[in-house]
């Protein structure tokens, strides 16, 4: 066990022994360090005012810089990382960084409160990508809200910064030195820090993790903390023991198993996106619409499943695709179809001390088509009112050989539309049959009304998604998508 937390704040090594396990990076910066450049706008990951950049070594040992929300990230999860805040950006001579200067030049700030967060998102973009296109800029900024500017000048700044700076000569471009420093911090010891009898445990291997959890079944597992962080900031829950997945490289890998992709439970959305999109392009698009950059950089599919939420976006897609999960307790493992994991609202088939180790995503079979639709009030960083996912296979005669339709937001758990599936399997894939099945779909669910949508809207949209699937699979000329790549509709 290592009993001190080690990370770099810029170029300064920090070692901290006593730390509240759920102290957020933001509170540490603002209250403890009085580095007040980083702002709090919401304390729930939704506004981006607190955006900082974290450098970490990925499973290949390469240094990655990622924009994250400091307000819901626990300080202790920075172990082995480098933290960069707005205060680090000015050059040694006081000159503004291109990401900052571009914001000044383009009039990208008005009240200025959102600005440090935007600057850090721009900075991360600048470090990682050269001259991205408009859609990519939108994605990189989707997690930062601005109430003053209407965004246009900030988007201009995202282009302008590349005119102002030489990326290769950037102070942060030399990653080797930082990577070496971070590599020197890495070890195989379990980190155990805490204060006042509460602990933060960050094992370095899957076996350590499994043993610790089996021994401390009351511990709270934390992966990206994009859910757990809010328990702390909004509900002020006191977590006695936190068990962090982030240092366990085995849980952070995506492995090709031949007929399936094995996605470690600790793999972030960002890391899962490309391999998943390669198999199922529309699943990739769905992931692009989960949270925003800062959330996807840390949030995990494992967390999205384990939280048991009826409105998580990945479960409907995974269920429609027939995915399974592997659960582990100590050295015991079992594999379960994902749909069987969700027992009822707030109740999952997971025993004390058992955790989600991996998600097993089958590869597509010839002739299968997959579509996923996320419906919310806003395209970016919004929780779905309804999320619908379909896997369809037609036989040579144009009949439905197989259909799996799964929905989020329609019941107390992510759930298949079994009546709808049954109503279509074996029938010709025609509009008349689809319309009949849309009626059946209404029998599959009795959704709730809430602030995201009324029950009536949810039912109507869910049914209409089936029609959309029909149009997309039968009319190659139809325009059906407002966002994302149009080709996804007809893939």
């Amino acid at each position, binding site marked *: 066990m290592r009993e001190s937390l080690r990370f770099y704040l810029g170029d300064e090594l920090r070692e901290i022994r006593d730390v509240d396990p759920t102290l957020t990076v933001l509170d540490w910066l603002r209250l403890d360090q009085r580095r007040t450049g980083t702002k709090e706008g919401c304390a729930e990951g939704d506004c981006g005012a607190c955006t900082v950049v974290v450098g970490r070594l990925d499973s290949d040992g390469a240094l990655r810089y990622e924009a994250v929300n400091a307000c819901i990230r626990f300080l202790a999860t920075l172990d082995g990382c480098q933290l960069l805040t707005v205060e680090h950006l000015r050059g040694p001579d006081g000159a503004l960084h291109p990401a900052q200067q571009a914001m000044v030049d383009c*009039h990208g700030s008005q009240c200025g409160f959102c600005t440090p967060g935007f600057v850090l998102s721009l900075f991360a973009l600048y470090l990682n990508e050269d001259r991205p296109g408009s859609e990519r800029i939108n994605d990189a900024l989707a997690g930062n809200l601005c109430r003053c500017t209407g965004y246009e000048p900030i988007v201009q700044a995202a282009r302008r910064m590349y005119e102002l700076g030489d990326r290769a000569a950037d102070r942060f471009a030399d990653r080797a030195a930082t990577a070496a420093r971070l590599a020197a911090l890495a070890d195989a010891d379990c980190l155990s820090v805490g204060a006042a009898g509460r602990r933060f445990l960050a094992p370095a291997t899957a076996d350590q993790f499994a043993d610790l959890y089996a021994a401390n079944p009351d511990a709270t597992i934390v992966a990206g903390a994009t859910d757990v962080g809010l328990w702390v900031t909004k509900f002020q829950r006191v977590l006695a023991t936190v068990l962090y997945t982030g240092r366990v490289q085995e849980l952070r890998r995506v492995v090709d198993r031949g007929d399936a992709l094995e996605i470690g439970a600790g793999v972030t959305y960002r890391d899962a996106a490309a391999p998943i999109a390669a198999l199922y392009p529309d699943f990739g698009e769905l992931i692009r619409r989960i949270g925003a950059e800062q959330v996807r950089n840390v949030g995990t599919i494992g967390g999205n499943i384990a939280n048991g939420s009826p409105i998580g976006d990945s479960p409907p897609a995974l269920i429609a695709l027939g995915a399974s999960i592997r659960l582990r307790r100590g050295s015991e493992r079992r594999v379960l179809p994902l749909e069987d994991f969700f027992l009822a609202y707030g109740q999952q088939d997971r025993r004390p001390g058992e955790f989600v180790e991996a998600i097993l995503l089958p590869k597509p079979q010839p002739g299968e088509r997959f579509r996923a639709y996320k419906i919310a009030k806003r395209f970016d960083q919004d929780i779905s009112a309804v999320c619908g996912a379909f896997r369809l296979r037609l036989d040579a005669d144009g009949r439905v050989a197989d259909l799996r339709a799964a929905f989020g937001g329609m019941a107390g758990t992510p759930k298949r539309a079994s009546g709808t599936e049954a109503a279509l399997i074996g029938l010709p894939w025609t509009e008349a049959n689809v319309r009949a099945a849309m009626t059946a779909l209404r029998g599959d669910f009795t959704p709730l009304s809430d602030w995201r949508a009324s029950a009536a809207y949810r039912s109507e949209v869910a049914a209409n998604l089936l029609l959309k699937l029909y149009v997309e699979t039968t009319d190659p000329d139809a325009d059906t998508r407002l966002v994302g790549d149009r080709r996804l509709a007809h893939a």
Partner: protein
Amino acid sequence: MPDAALPVPTISAIDGAVHSPRPHESAHKHVSGEAVYIDDIAEPAGLLHVALGLSAKAHARVTALDLSRVRAAPGVAVVVTAADVPGVNDIGYMGKGDEPLFASDLVQHVGQPLFAVAAHTRDQARRAAALADVTYEDLPAILTIAAARDGERTLVTAPMTLTVGDSAAALAEAPRRLDGRLAVGGQEHFYLESQIALAIPGEDEEVLVHVSTQHPTEVQHIVAHILHVPNGAVTVEVRRMGGGFGGKETQANLFAACAALIAKKTGRAAKLRPDRDDDFQITGKRHDFEIDYAVGFTDEGLVTGVEMLFAARAGYAADLSGPVTDRALFHADNCYHYPAARLESLPLKTNTVSNTAFRGFGGPQGMVAAERVIDEIAFALGADPLTIRKRNFYGVEDRNLTPYHQIVADNIIPELVAELEADCGYWERRAAIRAHNARSRILKKGLALTPVKFGISFTATHYNQAGALVHVYTDGSVQVNHGGTEMGQGLHTKVAQIVAEEFQIDIAQVRPTATTTGKVPNTSATAASSGTDLNGKAAQNAARAIKERLAAFAAERWGVAADAVVFAPGRIQAGDQSMSFPELVRAAYMARVQLSATGFYKTPKIHWDRAAGRGTPFFYYAYGAACSEVTVDTLTGEYVVDRVDILHDCGRSLNPAIDKGQIEGGFVQGMGWLTMEELWWDGQGRLRTHAPSTYKIPACGDRPRVFNVRLLDNAPNREDSVFRSKAVGEPPFMLGMSVLHALSDAVASVADHRFCPQLDAPATPERVLATIGRLRARAAGV
């Protein structure tokens, strides 16, 4: 000090003159995180952090308030309730006594503060606040406009009626008549910096309050009132806000008063920064309205008479609901001439948070009604809505009397709209969209061009005054202070430009300082778009007073007439004599010339008789128009804004970069109000969209994909405003209406444009889909 002659600059123009696109004066501090907001101020030793305990009920008697567990919680220093208020327990700006700082025996909305707890850390204070044991006895709660209007119609303040002509007769005689009802939602300000106040106790009765407010003077009065001390004992200061939008006009009172109360009670500094969820629940929002309308019109679509009833959700107290609902009536004509009209307001009391100022201040809700009426006429006649809009525009020489009996004397809307219509290719695009919709089964496009005319001035005439204080230092640097507050709108930048222009010195020499009641007293709220008009003029007057003294001094020294002395870039000269500005200042100082002056300004010409419903409440109007194109998914109701073209009137813009920023930002905020931003209360009166996770404002990707914004050229204000500029804070907000109408147009296509969609706001995807369903059913004759 030797009076060494400084070189006389020979520059031809100063840096940062008026009409130049200067960056915001704090831009470099914004981007580096160095701009200090109130939560960033170095904390005084022993600071206490305050949290509020809130009502869980919409309407109830509090039969017991047991705070013993709160008091006993770790770190708690003090707990205060209504009983601890030494002065009058009222934070309402009108002094009606309807807005207690702390409720005592009666709570009137969920989220109403009952007590405050101060502790060593904010976390401790928040945890302690959650420990109160409150016993309630429920009372019937009125939670919606409908319940209030259809019930006892209790009003929070006196309503207003505007009449012109005989609307009843006009409606009776009109060749055609339509009646309807429009619902338009409220809006949360979502300033990125939440409310915050930091109070530091002083000697005797004194207290200094740093507070994020648009109205330092009002905070000063309220704090004095709560503490029962003279106004002069209270100093209120704010350098900048992280956004205001009207949400910090009166809403900061509560936080400031509470922090000051605790500071004086404990003798320790106290800071109150509510969690975002609490901020949503405690503070008022834009009023939602339901508007009943009847319109009479000719077969050509010319309006002959209008009647409208504006029922507004005021919430539990008056706050600014009176002037807000008044302004709704003042803008219920938008750009259209109503030969006869009767417009009535109904500021209804509900058991929800007390609604307040928000950019546009009721004006947007009034205009939305005007645009709905026009749409109704267009659909009834099968005409393009733009045709009907243009047909009803105010005339320039005639047809120019408003329902409040002011003559529209500076009307430029016909030319402005004609210019935009041509520039954006309205009619070609109209045809292209029809063709697209005929082809495209699921995605339908819509197009709309809507105008804006917004009246500039506070309708409370006495608010139209401002003061400023300018100091010139002996090195030639200048400080300017004025009654306006900086919330991102660039007021300090513009005022600095004005002062730089007056002295003809580089703007780098002019430093705007924090707004404080200690320097400029008795100020008005920075609101009603008037910040620059009023404070810019006051600062100009202060600078001119000093200039006059300097010119007199130079004239005497050079032996020329004072009017021969001119302020040229960087220097002062008369004939072939010249001196640099710093040299002049130093010499003037040595000659004992006063280098500091106050300036004052009051808007001329305006007056308003509310009881009679007559007068000239506005100094001038600001105009603009926007054309929006959208695409709607008819299976889900989702939409995107494909393109927006805006032409907006800023007079002779003081700063085109800042004004463009106001236009773009205002537009997107207005669009958000009418589209995705939805306030959703449950059956118990709890606001369930109480944070950005559930209340969605436009994000980066929601902005128009093509966004062309242009300032109207060659359009100096016809009135003598500061450098002939026009106010720009609020007017562009209403350009967002074009998105609502473009959505409506796309929706109408599902029934061949036969029926007016009557699309209410916010037009969330759900509401769009429901409207599509309604139109389809109607078309099918169901």
